[in-house]
């Protein structure tokens, strides 16, 4: 079950207010996404903790409804 770019972006923004999200459709099938997320909430966190914040935005849908999301996290300068 694919997830649209606007749904993905809205979920991330709801979980991480003030973040910026850049999405790339890797396979052109609405099902394999790459997201670069820049969020002030990442400051001081390990990479694992940063990625967990992004995954948490999707609740249990990550790995199921949302099959593939390649995540890059960036701390704003």
């Amino acid at each position: 079950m694919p997830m649209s770019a606007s749904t993905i972006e809205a979920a991330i923004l709801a979980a991480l207010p003030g973040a910026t999200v850049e999405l790339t459709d890797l396979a052109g099938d609405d099902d394999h996404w790459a997201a670069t997320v820049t969020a002030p909430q990442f400051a001081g966190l390990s990479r694992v903790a940063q990625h967990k914040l992004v995954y948490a935005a999707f609740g249990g849908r990550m790995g199921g409804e949302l099959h593939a999301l390649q995540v890059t996290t960036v701390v704003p300068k």
Partner: protein
Amino acid sequence: MSDANSRISDLVTANDVVLFMKGTPLFPQCGFSSRAIAILDHCGVTYETVDVLQDMEIRQGIKSFSDWPTIPQLYVKGEFLGGSDIMMEMFEAGELQQLMDESGVAKVG
């Protein structure tokens, strides 16, 4: 502790580097697992892999064990390092190779 948890705990304690993946190093069944193998091979370290597609208990168990929703997952010296995105970020920054060196992980050959 459930069976799955103790099995996973044994695996990551007994081996310096463990990759939980879909498929095998020669025949990865997912692009992310394939990328994780390529990164480990570039690091030139020895590693164990666990094919979660052959083991439903581990496939479900590893997600709660690591509190991480996706496969692949890399463990070094019993510590959860992350999935393939974090492996790639660390590799490109030279941090993964440095961590392997500092952890005294055996090199190939």
